[in-house]
């Protein structure tokens, strides 16, 4: 522009000078004083008109150039604006954040994305590459820088990287960054432009899928996925199996994919279980079967097998997922268990029968002895020695009879858990029991106190309750202390679900700590007493427990014994 103005000026000065000189030379030749003024006026007028025309020409020419330039500039500006707009829309659509790095000046600038996506304010952003690098996750930064510098040194063609970029709130987003390098004529990189895409969601989804895949890969259950097409086969074709299936069946992935799952179930078509299964498949319903299947080497194994239909977002049935588990061992154990139970049940039955037969065969001759002895009671025996012998004979027989009867009771209790119960008046049962052992009671004369202010009854089997009282009472009298008069106290307490009966004596007591485990055991004797059979407490416990109750003992040697019995109330 300046050059052109100078040029015009120089040309004008030159032309004007030539014109001035020419007019002077002309005026000198034809000079006379009276028309010189007129000549000057004409000359000046011509000069003015001439220069005016030239000026007009240049101004017009210049104006023309300017307006086309402005026009061109305007078009350029509109294009730039449009491109920028387009670029912004694209950046927005792709959620790209664009950065521009002028490498030589280390000037770094970001588009709006840095604010919109990563939450930074305008003032937070510094226009250096350091600001960018500082926001890359420490675990990613080394790897990322190596790759980036290798690109800047043009050892690689393309630059694209995934790393974690820090947001304003301190959290990290996964980004996919792609960059382009601008190189000058000397081959030096001057500028790099990048587009950073937020792929956090994709990454998280990937992680989730990876996790799900790990489940399928690592689970011990065999997972088989089939398509949903049953036009060709009754059971659809396999599209995927996991390693557990290979381990379980011996079939490799390639052996099974594309084939109907039916070949790997091992059931016959006429099997009712299989028919149920195909019906479920037709109805697209979940189903579960247990069947014998065959491995690749033809070994049999039990498999528990479920099929679940899978539907896509349009609710179209697309696949089946089948979970299979080898239950051979379990089946084996179940079978063994069943067999064991059968055996035990049979053994138990046999033993029970045996105990009844034994009991019967023992009782038959014993009852004869008892009968015969009772007959001798009415016969006068003159021989004193014989009398003594028969007396001993009689005592032993009665003791044997008692033992056999107790054992018989134990057998019956064990065999009959459900027995008839009724509400029993404690005082009345006590009277019955004392009558049964009146000689023992009379000889020892214990002080018996019953504390039952609320007139509570006991819900129990009558025979069991009296047997319990009899055993406890007999024990208390047998094991009385020689140092004091025997005293027995029976107290009854009411509880929401049970009635508590406390049977307490002041006898010689039992070392509870010492005999803890054995107290209620079979054939356990704790005192050297000739009549002791070691059955009483076992029988008592058995009878109480068979009625759903429980018994506890507290005792102190030489002070006395306390039995606490809970009788369940009627439901």
């Amino acid at each position: 522009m300046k050059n052109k103005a100078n040029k015009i000026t120089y040309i004008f000065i030159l032309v004007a000078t030539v014109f001035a000189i020419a007019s002077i030379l002309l005026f000198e030749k034809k000079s006379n004083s009276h028309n010189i003024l007129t000549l000057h006026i004409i000359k000046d007028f011509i000069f003015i008109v001439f220069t005016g025309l030239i000026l007009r020409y240049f101004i017009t020419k210049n104006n023309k150039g300017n307006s086309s330039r402005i026009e061109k500039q305007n078009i350029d500006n509109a294009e730039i604006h449009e491109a920028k707009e387009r670029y912004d829309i694209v950046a927005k659509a792709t959620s790209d954040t664009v950065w521009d790095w002028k490498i030589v000046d280390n000037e770094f600038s970001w588009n709006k994305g840095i604010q919109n996506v990563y939450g930074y304010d305008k003032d937070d952003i510094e226009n250096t590459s350091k600001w960018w690098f500082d926001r890359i996750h420490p675990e990613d930064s080394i790897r990322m820088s190596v790759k980036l510098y290798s690109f800047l040194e043009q050892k690689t063609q393309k630059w694209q990287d995934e790393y974690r970029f820090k947001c304003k709130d301190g959290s990290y987003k996964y980004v996919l960054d792609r960059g382009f390098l601008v190189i000058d004529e000397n081959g030096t990189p001057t500028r790099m432009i990048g587009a950073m895409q937020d792929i956090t969601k994709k990454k998280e989804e990937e992680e989730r899928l990876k996790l799900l895949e790990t489940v399928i890969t690592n689970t011990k259950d065999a997972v088989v996925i089939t398509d949903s097409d049953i036009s060709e086969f009754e059971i659809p074709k396999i599209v995927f199996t996991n390693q557990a299936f290979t381990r379980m069946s011996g079939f490799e992935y390639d052996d099974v994919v594309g084939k109907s799952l039916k070949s790997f179930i091992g059931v016959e078509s006429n099997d009712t279980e299989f028919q149920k299964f195909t019906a479920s498949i037709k109805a697209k319903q979940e189903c579960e079967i247990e069947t014998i299947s065959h491995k690749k080497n033809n070994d049999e194994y039990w498999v528990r097998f479920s099929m679940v239909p899978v539907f896509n977002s349009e609710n179209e049935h697309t696949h089946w997922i089948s979970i299979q588990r080898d239950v051979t061992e379990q089946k084996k154990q179940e079978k063994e268990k069943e067999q064991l139970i059968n055996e035990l049940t049979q053994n138990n039955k046999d033993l029970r029968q045996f105990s009844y037969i034994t009991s019967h065969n023992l009782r038959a001759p014993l009852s004869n002895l008892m009968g015969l002895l009772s007959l001798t009671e009415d016969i006068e025996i003159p021989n004193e020695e014989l009398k003594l012998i028969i007396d001993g004979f009689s005592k032993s027989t009665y003791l044997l009879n008692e033992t056999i009867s107790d054992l018989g009771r134990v057998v019956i209790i064990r065999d009959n858990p459900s027995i008839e119960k009724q509400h029993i008046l404690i005082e009345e049962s006590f009277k019955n029991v004392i009558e049964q052992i009146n000689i023992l009671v009379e000889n020892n004369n214990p002080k018996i106190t019953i504390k039952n202010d609320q007139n509570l009854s006991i819900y129990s089997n009558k025979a069991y309750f009296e047997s319990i009282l009899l055993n406890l009472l007999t024990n208390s009298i047998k094991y009385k202390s020689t140092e004091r008069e025997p005293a027995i106290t029976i107290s009854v307490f009411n509880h929401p679900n049970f009635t508590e009966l406390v049977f307490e004596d002041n006898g010689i007591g039992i070392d509870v700590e010492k005999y803890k485990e054995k107290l209620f055991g079979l054939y356990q004797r704790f005192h050297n007493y000739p009549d002791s059979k070691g059955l009483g407490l076992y029988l008592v416990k058995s009878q109480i427990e068979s009625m759903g109750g429980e018994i506890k003992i507290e005792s102190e040697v030489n002070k006395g014994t306390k039995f606490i019995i809970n009788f369940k109330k009627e439901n």
Partner: protein
Amino acid sequence: MLQKVICVDDDPIALLLSKLVISKASFASQIVTCVNGEEAIKYLEKPETIEENSNSEQPLLILLDLNMPVMDGWEFLEQFSNKLQEVYAKTKIILLSSSIDPNDIQKSKNFSMVVDFLPKPLTKEMLALISEKIKT
């Protein structure tokens, strides 16, 4: 006093005992003993026994053991129910056994002529109880 008691038992001592207890207590004027169910059925089937029974006003009492060879107590009860029940309508049977098997007690309730299940040995106290039972 009853006119007749039939004691059915394979154990001679048990039979002896029953006989002694019954006669001592003057419980019946005649005591018949049989060693198994079959012998008892045969005895009951005799025309003279039937005739004697139909002439008697007193009910006939049978003390029956369960565990016997040849024909046990249960088989006897079956045959009695099938063949003799009508003829011996008044007859009462007491099971006298050493068995404590609750199933036996339960099973005995299926026979209407069985009035009680008693444990051996027979005693005079039991005879008093039996008298009460057969009255009703």
